[in-house]
């Protein structure tokens, strides 16, 4: 299959390297340097896609990122299928496999094309007006049909094996776009010594110059040498980072710009260990936007047939890729610049007829065209085209000044139609910087004005279209930017020149004889929005451009209106009798062009999605076959199953061991804060509900922390290590929160206090040894501390050594048994744990996990903040009012506790619940009602917070928050479950050793 439309010479492709690829299974070949689009064209393939709604056959419209039609899926293997890529952006590589989209069974014969016949009955927004009867049909019948017809490419179905990377970067001057303006800007900034980043979405530097027959010639004196010299200098300069295949997709506050660098998309065999894309977050002191301009299509009947393309694109395919898109071309234009394309085509041997809608075409280029023998029709419009899968002819009609037909329409046979409505400066990124754009009547375009960010625009994106002028514009913008960064600018550069008008034509649709709006005149190619749709929207009262956009979906396709917004705006403005600036633009939003989800995630995936925090004893537990649970970022051993035990069986065994012998529990994840200073006790008194003044050195107390709304925020044992030093423990989840709250009060409310905070959460490994035999196990190991109850009573703390390692020994118990918590410096945690475990063998020492800890503490009626409380529970609700220091004038939350709602008898209070059938374990979160027969909405009076089977008590136990709970002791309440209500009796929350005698063993 020879490349029928390939020119014999020319183009920036490597004709020595043929590259084979497939499109919908067809074997084709192009050259190295081709895009999929140019290679397809070279092979005479114009039909590349089907439109979203009417499934109309579509060909390439453009040669760049603004392409609305040529959306393809690229498949490398089953797990590497990427939908919705633009063929114009896909660089060809050996063995590339491309598939067209949104058509069944094939591109040529698409059943969806039926919609095109139904088009009179399915205008814009038709789905709001129907599909409402019968009511149930929407979910079962209509919606599935609509969803099946919608969507473009197929969503990937397998996990993506590719990896993505991210990088922060900083520079003095970030230049976006490496066309004439951008290259000049980067070079000028670099020359001043500034640190520069230059990025461009293309694989090659040069921007619009790449589409010219002789790049550089248009750059003024020694243009060619300047171009090659500048590129070489930039690539060699260590202070300049040049990023090709990199799109600046988002402008964020304070000059933070998001870049998307495609690293391996163009390679036949990417290295699997290397990332596919990298997302940069660049903080730039100054930004120079040189983002160029996008050619506007024209709106006339039948302007969407394959073979109808933008004039600049045809010129690019010819000059850059050596592809002559057609032999008999018709150029339809309202703009002088487009004549260059006609002249280049002519030179390449194509026949070209020019149809200029303007009254006269007197520009210099028009004269050149005429002298080159091209026929130029003026004051002529296009009233239709012909050709289903490829344009075959256009019908043109001369109009008089009043728009009336003059003479008969004329048909011109052709295989290619070029169109150009002028250029739209790309102000996307500038607008994202919250810069204000202003309408230029002379240029018929919105130009960048002022921005609150440190940004300047240069070249075509601010209406300076000629390459030579753009070059000078880039130099002056960069000189000012470099100067604002404090770099001396050595060359005399004036202020950027104000923009002069170039007599551009107004956007909108070409005039039609008799003025009635034509059928099938497309404004938004991809979403199939016609000028008639816009008129319908205006007619139905959608007058704001934002309403028109949402009602017709113009500008909402994957090209985000890059080729349609201005024309749509102009058509709506004329319909409403307003000027274009009065109607205004819709909001520009990131990303400029679509950006891969994976690159936003970067390294944050799998094991690195969130840090996995493990304690010093984790590996020992893992070797024992522990099952772990996630608590915040921590992994905590939940239970230690032996030879296939269920959790239930393991927990029963572990609890038995603690109650009878002794158990070992890793409490290292608890938060720990060292509060030090002469005002430490004053600080603790102001913060926690408890009184601390009378807590002796060497003693501990269970502390409760509220927030100033009166609700329990955290709790934990507080030990007085010295007169001016407290060791405060918090819940695992509360560690960072509590420290932040403490610093807040200290720094902003009580800066006079002489006290400081230091987190010691990870300084200490904490080994809880609980059970009647705990002391016997410890005796052999510790030195320098008297373990007797008199010397070290319950809630005592003492320094000492264990196996030669410094230790803080706490006598505390969260199980109700004789208990110790051995705190040793973290790196010693594992060795000391193993030593204690070994010493405990004869005493039946057993490791237990968080599940057993929960059961043991529930048997004692101890609360777990976050489970038995939920941010709406006061100390009294939880039965902890005893902890409140009565004489204290204030503590955090005290005032809030005096509010009326805090004393309502109807508050939920913590109680115990015993099921009528002892072996039934209530579900945590189950609701409690007073009346068994209550049918929803049954206004429950409480809910179960903790519920377990207690091996010790031989039955299930539960804690619950119940309205006026403490006044319902002995009452029977009900827990509604799907298969019937369960009877429960309200009891005290302490089920085991209520007097606490076992603690003082």
């Amino acid at each position, binding site marked *: 299959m020879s490349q029928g439309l390939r020119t014999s010479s020319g183009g920036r492709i490597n004709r020595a390297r043929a590259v084979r690829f497939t499109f919908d299974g067809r074997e084709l070949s192009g050259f190295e340097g081709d895009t999929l689009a140019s290679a397809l064209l070279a092979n005479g393939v114009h039909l590349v896609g089907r439109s979203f709604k009417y499934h109309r056959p579509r060909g390439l419209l453009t040669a760049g990122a603004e392409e609305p039609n040529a959306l393809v899926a690229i498949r490398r293997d089953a797990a590497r299928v990427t939908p919705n890529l633009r063929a114009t952006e896909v660089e060809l590589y050996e063995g590339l496999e491309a598939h067209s989209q949104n058509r069944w069974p094939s591109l040529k014969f698409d059943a969806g094309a039926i919609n095109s016949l139904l088009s009179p009955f399915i205008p814009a927004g038709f789905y709001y007006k129907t599909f409402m009867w019968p009511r149930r049909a929407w979910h079962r019948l209509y919606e599935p049909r609509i969803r*099946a017809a*919608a969507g473009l490419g197929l969503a*990937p179905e397998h996990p993506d094996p590719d990896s993505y990377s991210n990088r922060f970067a900083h520079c003095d001057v970030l230049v976006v776009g490496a066309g004439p303006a951008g290259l000049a800007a980067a070079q000028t900034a670099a020359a001043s010594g500034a640190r520069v980043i230059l990025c461009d979405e293309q694989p090659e530097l040069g921007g619009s110059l790449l589409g010219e027959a002789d790049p550089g010639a248009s750059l003024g004196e020694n243009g060619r040498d300047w171009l090659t010299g500048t590129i070489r200098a930039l690539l060699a300069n260590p202070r300049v980072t040049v990023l090709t295949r990199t799109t600046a997709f988002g402008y964020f506050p304070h000059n933070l710009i998001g870049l998307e660098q495609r690293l391996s998309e163009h390679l036949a065999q990417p290295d699997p260990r290397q990332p596919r894309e990298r997302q940069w977050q660049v903080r730039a002191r100054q930004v120079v936007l040189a983002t160029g301009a996008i050619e506007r299509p024209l709106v006339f009947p039948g302007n969407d047939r394959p073979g109808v393309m933008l004039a600049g694109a045809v010129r690019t395919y010819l000059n850059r890729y050596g592809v002559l898109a057609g032999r008999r071309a018709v150029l339809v234009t309202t703009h002088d610049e487009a004549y260059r394309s006609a002249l280049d085509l002519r030179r390449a041997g194509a026949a070209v007829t020019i149809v200029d809608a303007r009254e006269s075409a007197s520009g210099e280029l028009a004269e050149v065209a005429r002298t080159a023998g091209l026929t130029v029709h003026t004051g002529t419009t296009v009233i239709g085209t012909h050709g289903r899968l490829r344009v075959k002819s256009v019908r043109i009609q001369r109009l008089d000044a009043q728009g009336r037909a003059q003479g008969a329409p004329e048909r011109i046979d052709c295989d290619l139609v070029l169109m150009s409505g002028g250029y739209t400066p790309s102000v996307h990124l500038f607008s994202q910087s919250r810069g204000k754009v202003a309408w230029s009547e002379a240029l018929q375009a919105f130009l960048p004005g002022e921005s609150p960010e440190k940004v300047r625009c240069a070249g075509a994106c601010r209406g300076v279209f000629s390459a030579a002028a753009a070059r000078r514009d880039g130099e002056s913008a960069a000189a000012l930017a470099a100067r604002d960064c404090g770099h001396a600018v050595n060359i005399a550069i004036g202020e950027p020149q104000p923009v002069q008008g170039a007599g551009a034509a107004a956007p909108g649709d070409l005039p039609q004889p008799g003025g009635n709006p034509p059928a099938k005149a497309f404004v938004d190619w991809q979403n199939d929005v016609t000028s008639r749709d816009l008129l319908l929207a205006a007619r139905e009262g959608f007058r704001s451009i934002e309403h028109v956009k949402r009602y017709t979906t113009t500008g909402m396709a994957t090209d985000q209106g890059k080729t349609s917004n201005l024309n749509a705006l102009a058509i709506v403005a004329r319909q409403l009798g307003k000027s274009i600036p009065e109607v205004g633009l819709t909001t520009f939003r990131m990303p400029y062009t*679509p*950006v891969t989800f994976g690159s*936003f995630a970067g390294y944050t995936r799998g094991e690195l999605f969130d840090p996995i925090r493990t304690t010093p004893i984790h590996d020992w537990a893992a070797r024992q076959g522990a099952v772990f649970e*996630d*608590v915040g970022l921590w992994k905590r051993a939940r239970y230690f199953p032996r030879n296939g035990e269920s959790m239930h069986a393991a927990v029963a065994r572990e609890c038995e061991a603690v109650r009878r012998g002794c158990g070992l529990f890793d409490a290292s994840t608890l938060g720990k804060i060292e509060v030090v200073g002469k005002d430490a006790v004053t600080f603790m008194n102001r913060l926690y509900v408890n009184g601390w003044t009378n807590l002796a050195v060497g003693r501990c107390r269970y502390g409760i922390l509220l927030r100033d709304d009166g609700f329990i925020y955290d709790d934990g044992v507080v030990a007085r290590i010295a007169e001016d030093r407290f060791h405060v423990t918090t819940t695992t989840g509360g560690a960072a929160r509590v420290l932040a709250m403490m610093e807040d009060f200290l720094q902003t409310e009580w800066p006079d206090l002489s006290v400081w905070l230091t987190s010691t959460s990870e300084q200490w490994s904490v080994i809880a040894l609980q059970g009647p035999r705990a002391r016997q196990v410890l005796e052999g190991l510790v030195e320098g501390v008297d373990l007797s109850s008199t010397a070290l009573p319950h809630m005592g703390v003492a320094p000492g050594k264990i196996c030669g390692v410094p230790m803080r020994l706490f006598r505390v118990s969260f199980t109700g048994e004789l208990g110790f918590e051995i705190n040793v410096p973290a790196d010693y945690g594992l060795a000391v744990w193993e030593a204690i475990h070994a010493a405990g063998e004869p005493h039946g020492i057993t490791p237990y996990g968080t599940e057993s800890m929960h059961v043991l503490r529930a048997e004692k009626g101890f609360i777990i903040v976050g489970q038995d409380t939920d941010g709406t529970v006061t100390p009294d609700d939880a039965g902890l009012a005893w902890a409140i220091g009565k004489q204290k004038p204030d503590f955090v939350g005290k005032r809030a506790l005096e509010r009326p709602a805090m004393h309502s008898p109807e508050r939920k209070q913590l109680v115990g619940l015993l099921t009528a059938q002892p072996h039934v374990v209530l579900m945590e*979160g189950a609701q409690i009602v007073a009346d068994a027969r209550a049918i929803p909405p049954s206004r429950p009076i409480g809910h179960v917070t903790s519920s377990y089977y207690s091996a010790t008590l031989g039955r299930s136990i539960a804690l619950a928050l119940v309205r006026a709970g403490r006044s319902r002791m002995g009452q029977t309440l009900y827990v509604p479950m799907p298969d019937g209500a369960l009877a429960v009796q309200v009891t005290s929350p302490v089920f085991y050793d209520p007097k606490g005698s076992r603690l003082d063993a």
Partner: protein
Amino acid sequence: MQRFSGLSLIRRGLTGQRGWQPQWRQAEPKAAYDAIIVGGGGHGLGAAFYLAKEHGLTRVAVVEKGWIGGGNTGRNTTIIRSNYLFDESAALYDHSVQLWETLSQVLNYNVMFSQRGVMMLAHTVHDVQVSQRHVHANRANGVDNEWLTPEEARAICPLLQTDDIRYPVLGAAFQRRGGTARHDAVAWGFARAADALGVDIIENCEVLGIRRDSHGAACGIETTRGFIGAPKIGVSAAGHSSVIMKMAGVELPIESYPLQALVSEPVKPIFPCVVMSNTIHAYISQSDKGEMVIGAGTDAYTSYTQRGGLHISRHALEAICELFPMFRRLRMLRNWGGIVDVTPDRSPIIAKTPVPGLYVNCGWGTGGFKATPGAAHLLAWTIAHDAPHPINAPFTIERFRDGNLIDEAAAAAVAH
């Protein structure tokens, strides 16, 4: 009001669809009305509709600073559910879901309410406890919600990755009556129906002040298009509620934060329901056009810029890629932001205010869209009766003074 139906489409199709009239009039402000609604979003337009339809108040005006549906109504992720924890919230949001179920027919405007189910994932033991409490509490309040095992969750949403991810999915709470709707259609549907009942919809009319009579009661609003009088003023201005209410000296306990959302490029249908995860902060559904609609969290600081930081979108997409690893290759098409007014207990305020004749509907935070018809109906009732409906009675400004908070966020957040 021209009737919408398949037939009407065909009939008018024969004459080039030129027979359609404006869906709502571009009304000029009159000097006085029986009631004014400030804010032309779904809540405001809906309130005007219910005032006219259920309370016979037809001299009503909706005053909108920009274009109707241009605020949060046009910027949200369109999720609808009522599986809230507390009795007061369950009643409020389910009142709304019940209205959603017939809204297309009531308005004769297809709002595309799709009850495809909303699945809230549980990743930790704590999550499981919180989710199951929701399931039980919802069932007790007559709100459908069921607990799913990871296998059952995957049966409903096959793409969901439950294992060998950082926080494996331990289960999910699934409300079948939850789902999504087409947000723009809600604003336009209410506008058209209200307009047909005589309500004046006045766009491009910014409120500059609230005038009060000698007794201190509200009696009208100063706007960029002149003074408009009315004895009853309902403010439903979402992120701008503080700005408007301060004009009447009413201080609110709300802060306005940027909330971002994003869509992918459209793909063929592959995602059947709505999936949400509090633990890894992400929620996702697929629009009828084929785009994945993904919600992010709020930014850390208050802002009226309607945009947020790149790190916030990155955080949301990290989570989506973790739960749906095949979506890594999808591409973001568009990212935007709104302004959500957040109260200390994450529950709304639909109530009378200290200023007689002035009513407020605000504080919906990230959950306003799902409440649209319910909030509208209750605001209209409160205005018409000068007293709250039993459902919105608890949602007062005074609750913060007395401590009767309805704290939906607290329950989920605290990890022991």
